[in-house]
């Protein structure tokens, strides 16, 4: 492997890894803020304990999100310096603004929330966790605006004198229709992730010891399941909008998602294909007639362009070369992403039904409880792999190819070193994180009362 392949693997590994934790942070900060609000408004100990229990799990997750985020900020310059030079005038601004507006807010107020427990005025303490939640939203928006520019560059001009893309309309970058659809989709995915996280853990407690700690975990099952279902509905709606925008902005990605080789009107939606995906032969497939036309264009017989036709068109526009992404990868990641979301929602529905009917616990329900927090993590990863791999060979669609973006001064040995070091380190972190999460997820929080002497109280989160 040469430097370009290693740099791509490194970007993939550390970014997918980082994004295992990010959606939990985005979603859980909102849910914990909600529980804290319930505690603040009712004064009930039940909600205080819930805030504490879920807050602890949130913090364990947050720490890894923060430290792996540092690498994200540095790696563009380290591995992708040609890319950084080419897009810096546009891409750097949202990143810097993300730091100034979001990272400061999150880190400062999280410190206040953790250490201000029982010490800060109640209103300020509550405001702290909400500001953390708002910070995660701001962070998501700016980084997605930067990514959306790579998918569909807006508001720039190419300056041939400096050889780079230059910003002339920042508003167009922030209101790119790709980010307007991607942001709600990502937030919905984050809420699905957090809802499923809460649902799985709470369900496990209820099923393992029926009748115990009901006041703590029954509302959590309900909150988790409802969040999951609402988020799943939002994911479908925003995903549908995204598909239509993608058909317009990146038709090749849409065609690759469906392994649609030849322009068709109407185009069927392929559910499963067995056989070769290079378009030469299809052994067996299951298709919904008109499905893709409807998904991509909102009309029954709409024309959807195929990979081969787009390849010809792109060769005329951009010159000779292959403009096809890895079709089997885009095809299957797209499908399994959707499947992960659907399964999560199905388990949430089952859990609500179970809660209502007070049915006896069964082995497979416990298994479902264990699986449900993991499914959205899989879906999130596949979604991003699809989005990024579907854009290939471009790093910035239509402007710069990925192979032209790497750092000329960094050799394959250096990239390999950092790839190995970071992957091993991340592996160790994952083990420690899962160990802590499991430990605290199992532990039922003790009954606590408001301390009479706050100075002598045990901190809610040991330090």
């Amino acid at each position, binding site marked *: 492997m040469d430097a370009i392949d290693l740099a791509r693997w490194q970007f993939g590994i550390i970014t997918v890894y980082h994004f295992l934790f990010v959606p939990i942070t985005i979603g859980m900060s909102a849910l914990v803020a909600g529980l804290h609000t319930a505690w603040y408004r009712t004064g009930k100990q039940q909600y205080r304990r819930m805030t504490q229990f879920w807050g602890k799990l949130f913090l364990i997750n947050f720490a890894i999100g923060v*430290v792996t985020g*540092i690498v994200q900020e540095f790696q563009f*310059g380290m591995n992708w*310096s040609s890319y950084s030079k080419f897009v810096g005038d546009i891409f750097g601004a949202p990143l*810097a603004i993300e730091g*100034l507006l979001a990272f400061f807010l999150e880190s400062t107020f999280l410190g206040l929330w953790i*250490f201000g427990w029982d010490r800060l005025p109640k209103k300020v303490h509550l405001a702290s966790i909400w500001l953390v939640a708002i910070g995660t939203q701001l962070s998501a928006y700016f980084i997605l605006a930067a990514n959306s520019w790579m998918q569909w560059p807006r508001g720039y001009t190419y300056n041939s004198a400096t050889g780079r893309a230059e910003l*002339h309309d920042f508003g167009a970058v922030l209101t790119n229709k790709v980010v307007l659809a991607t942001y709600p989709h990502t937030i919905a995915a984050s809420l699905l992730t957090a809802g499923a996280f809460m649902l799985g853990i709470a369900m496990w407690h209820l099923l393992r010891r029926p009748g115990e700690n009901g006041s703590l975990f029954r509302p959590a099952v309900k909150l988790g399941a409802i969040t999951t279902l609402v988020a799943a509905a939002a994911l479908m709606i925003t995903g549908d909008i995204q598909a239509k925008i993608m058909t317009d902005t990146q038709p090749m990605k849409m065609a690759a998602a469906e392994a649609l080789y030849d322009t068709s009107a109407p185009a069927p939606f392929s559910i499963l294909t067995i056989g070769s995906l290079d378009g030469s032969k299809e052994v067996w497939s299951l298709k919904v007639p008109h499905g893709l036309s409807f998904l991509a264009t909102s009309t029954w017989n709409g024309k959807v362009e195929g990979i081969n036709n787009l390849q010809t068109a792109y060769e005329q526009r951009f010159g000779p070369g292959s403009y096809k992404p890895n079709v089997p990868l885009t095809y299957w990641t797209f499908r399994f992403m959707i499947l992960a979301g659907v399964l999560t929602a199905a388990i949430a529905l089952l859990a609500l039904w179970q809660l209502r009917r007070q049915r006896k616990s069964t082995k497979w329900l416990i298994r479902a409880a264990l699986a449900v927090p993991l499914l959205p993590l899989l879906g999130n990863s596949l979604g991003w792999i699809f989005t990024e791999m579907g854009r290939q060979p471009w790093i910035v669609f239509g402007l710069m190819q990925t192979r032209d973006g790497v750092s000329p001064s960094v050799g394959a040995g250096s990239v390999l070193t950092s790839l190995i070091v970071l992957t091993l380190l991340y592996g160790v972190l994952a083990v*420690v994180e899962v160990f802590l999460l499991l*430990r605290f997820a199992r532990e039922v929080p003790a009954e606590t009362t408001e301390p009479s002497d706050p100075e002598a109280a045990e901190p809610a989160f040991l330090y």
Partner: protein
Amino acid sequence: MALTDIWFLLIAVLWTGYLVLEGFDFGVGMLLPVVGRDAVDRKVTLRTIGPVWDGNEVWLLVAGGATFAAFPFWYATLFSGFYLALLIILVALILRGIALEYRGKLDDATWHRRWDLVIVGSSAVPALLWGVALANIVRGVPMGADHEYAGNFFTLLNPYALLGGVTTLLLFALHGAIFLALKTHGEVHDRALKLVPPIGLATVVAAAGFLGWTQAFDGSALTWTLALAAALCLVGALAASRFGREGWAFLGTAATIALAAATLFTTLYPNVLPSTTDAAFSLTTVNAASTHYTLTIMTWVAVIFTPVVLAYQGYTYWVFRKRLGRTDIYQPAEKVTS
């Protein structure tokens, strides 16, 4: 003043903020086993930075992001050029963040001991390497007309840069000791205070050598003045500490770090990364910069939001202003040792 100059200044300010703030975090981390002789004292020590360290580290992320936005060529050449050094720093910062956050999650002596080791190492390594990196930026690196770094990892380990690293390492240790003396009472306070004179003396020697040597690169009346002011503040901090004026001592080391950073950035200007191959190949505030339009937008964002950030970070320090001691640490009744 051109926008490119304003952004050079702003990035210098962001780096200065980072070094002043995370400087004492690094110091506290390095001194952890020296000032914290038992479990409770170590908790006291870490609690002093607990609520603030993460916010302090964001200064680095914003400095990095601002460099990317305002001077993309600086960001690209520097970060790809200093590749392995940055990798080591990143690994240390990752380990450090996790250690600080996870250490207290379990009440287990072995667990604590292991994370303590990580905290010490991962505080010392970046404290040393940031000095090496900054010194190399001022000194310049081999770089051709393509503005690509032409050296390797060992090019960065030259005597001037290593002295820079030793200087930041000692200065941050001193800054941390003085911070601990200000923020604690009891044994941690006394031990931290005792560390000030020996570390202080070594710092004076290293810093005088380093800032003096810096004058060789692009010394002017201004850089001499800044370096002398830094030295005065350092001596002032040691004197204040000697007379029990801990607040003044802390201001003194903070000012020392800020003035030392000012010396370096003033020496660097108008370059952002000089070329030792040929001065004509240097990256400057002009040829590394973003467009006027981007810099204008970034300036507005910075003007509006920086005061807000300063206000709420200041508020955090105000909330947690109290000195900490053993009684602030929760100890189950049977374990109380005092």
